[in-house]
């Protein structure tokens, strides 16, 4: 097969696993031998970032482990849309127990494999942001501090989507959810709350922590593969836009994710043993407003004719600027 020469800048973050690349540079998705771990037929919404993220993460992990892998899933959209009785989209051994115990169940699987001398079989745990940073947080922290041999992946769509888009502690300020509506003096989710679990994970000094988005799937796959080179507890926090919950166009999932990164509102970085080791620089900085305007959950910031809430948009821009400064997201080599 002949390959088309393509410009260097396309090979990096702006290209989604395309088939024009040299096979070596293709994503796991673009390869013939991909494992289709989360196969077609599931019931996710059109343009679901979580489905896309899970597919890339698990196929990359399958490639990294030669298919020797078990997945544990907490309750949430991913679990529900992938196993409508009597069907299952999972083409790997997959166990779902509860909403709040994914990390502990995964730790148990890893312990069983260790006891059996089958540490060649690797374990990936996965959950939404609610299952990771809220109800599963105790189990997650326990899994981290014991340094259990588990890669835990949080698909962060910034809310409890499965139950109808309620606020989680990963929901950003000002975002409208079913229980932080755009009503009252402080419209949408309040400022000054929530937690930063990637940083909390780093505080456990586990071998590897990374954030990623579904906008840069090469980067996401690379991080999964890198994570699988470590033993012990690893954490991957992936921003996965949810068209339904965010009120975004299904066709804009990748774009929204890219703007989250390019505006600095969602910093993409890697850390090892408590230290940040790499950041994904912003390529073409955009104002946070560009990101917000694509999503109806922020519509109240721009409504009421021209007035809207420029003050709140400015506060969100401040948050992005703070990330940019903290992680050094601008300038330098790309």
């Amino acid at each position: 097969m002949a390959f088309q020469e393509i410009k260097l800048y396309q090979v990096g973050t702006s290209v989604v696993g395309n088939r024009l690349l040299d096979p070596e540079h293709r994503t796991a998705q673009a390869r013939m031998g991909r494992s289709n771990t989360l196969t077609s037929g599931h019931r996710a919404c059109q343009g679901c970032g979580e489905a896309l993220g899970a597919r890339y993460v698990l196929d990359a992990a399958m490639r990294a482990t030669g298919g020797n892998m078990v997945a544990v899933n907490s309750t949430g959209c991913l679990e529900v849309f992938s196993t409508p009785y009597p069907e299952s989209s999972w083409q790997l051994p997959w166990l779902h127990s509860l909403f709040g115990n994914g990390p502990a169940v995964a730790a148990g699987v890893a312990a069983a494999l260790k006891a059996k001398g089958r540490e060649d079989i690797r374990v990936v745990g996965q959950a939404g942001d609610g299952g990771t940073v809220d109800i599963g947080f105790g189990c997650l922290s326990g899994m981290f501090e014991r340094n259990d041999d588990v890669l835990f992946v949080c698909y962060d769509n910034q809310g409890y989507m499965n139950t109808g888009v309620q606020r989680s502690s990963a929901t950003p300020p000002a975002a409208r959810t079913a229980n932080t509506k755009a009503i009252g003096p402080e419209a949408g989710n309040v400022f000054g709350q929530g937690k930063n679990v990637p940083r909390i994970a780093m505080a456990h000094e586990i071998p590897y922590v990374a954030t990623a988005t579904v906008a840069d799937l090469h980067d996401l796959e690379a991080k999964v593969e890198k994570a699988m080179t470590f033993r012990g507890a690893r954490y991957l926090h992936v921003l996965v836009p949810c068209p339904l919950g965010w009120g975004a166009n299904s066709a804009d999932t990748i774009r929204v994710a890219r703007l989250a990164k390019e505006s600095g509102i969602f910093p993409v970085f890697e850390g090892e043993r408590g230290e940040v080791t790499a950041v994904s620089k912003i390529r073409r900085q955009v104002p946070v407003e560009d990101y917000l305007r694509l999503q109806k959950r922020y519509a109240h910031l721009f409504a009421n004719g021209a007035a809207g809430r420029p003050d709140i948009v400015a506060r969100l821009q401040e948050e992005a600027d703070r990330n940019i400064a903290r992680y050094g997201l601008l300038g330098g080599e790309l």
Partner: protein
Amino acid sequence: MLRQIEGSQAVATAVQLCRPEVISAYPISPQTHIVEALSDRVRTGELAGCEYLMVESEFGALSACIGSSGAGARSYTATSSQGLLFMAEALFNASGLGLPIVMTVANRAIGAPINIWNDHSDSMSMRDSGWIQLFARSNQEAVELHIQAFRLAETLSVPVMVCMDGFVLTHAFEAVDLPSQEQVDAFLPPFVPQQSLDPRDPVTIGAMVGPEAFAEVKYLMHAKQVAALDEIPRISEDFAATFGRDSGGLVRPYRLDDAETVVVALGSVLGTVEEVVDAMREEGVRFGALAISCFRPWPLEEVREALSGAKRVVVVEKAFAVGAGGIVGQNTRLALSGLPTEVYNVVAGLGGRPITQASLHGLFADVVEARLDPRRLHFLDLDVALVERELARAGQGRRSGPHAENMLRDLGVVASGSV
């Protein structure tokens, strides 16, 4: 080998002999001595091939067992009281998934008021969680029930709870005949899971099931428990053949032939009950006792048969359904429905209050001489005056304060305990 040993150490040894592959537990009195001993043995390598997980909560403990059992490893945990409640969601999940986890419950009261001492409120609160519940009368029996529990769990692919009275058994030093590794190996084959997470044969475990099949899945859970009613006696017989010891089974009769009054109870109190039964017999009163060894599944037929000759049944139980009545009592009444037998339901030993021979003797005399109303729920040794004084205080105004602290002040005692 016969050894004078603490109950917890004996149970830890029994668990060790069963060759668990994953143990995951969180400390709570009075379960602690068991899991401490097991973690020691994993560390020293005496218990080889086993991973011990120090989890962050009981919820995490049982969740890890769900993962490890799902991955095909023989898995064990232990807890008590608040810890069992903290596991509640995972308990139902483990049984729903049909995972053969074995757990010791060192029975302890549930707060508030917080209380570390023995009763059966914890296990009873989880009686409908889909776990099989076996109750030990002595440490010897606790040891034997654990060995049988693994076999039972793995034969039927159901989780099993072995209930032993906290402190009364867990912390008691008494002689226990501990089996050898060879005996246990002969009785308990290696675990072959019904379902397992295996990359060579990938399965989905824990899928969502809607109205189309949910009832059927639940029905199968029930059917498994019903099957356990046959399996438990079979395992008990096998156990006798291997170990030469008679233990386990569904119910255990004591001097039931010609008994007019039969005491029904669970757990360690049966020793004291048997002493009093003997005393009553010496006085010429025809008493007997029936130990419920297996409370879930409820051995309705066996209980009915054992009690069918009795005129009266006295159920002495260490828990009750607040606002409704006795729990074992209700189950016993169900077993006796249609028979003229009077059932007296007595709640005793709550929060570690000793159940003494003297009190039981008085109770039994009251029953025989018809001084007790069988339609009411009775509380053994209840300090009625104390209750009435507190009710009077409460009646004086809205802000009378917390009952527990008021009553302690009234009694002039201080509660203390390691929690």
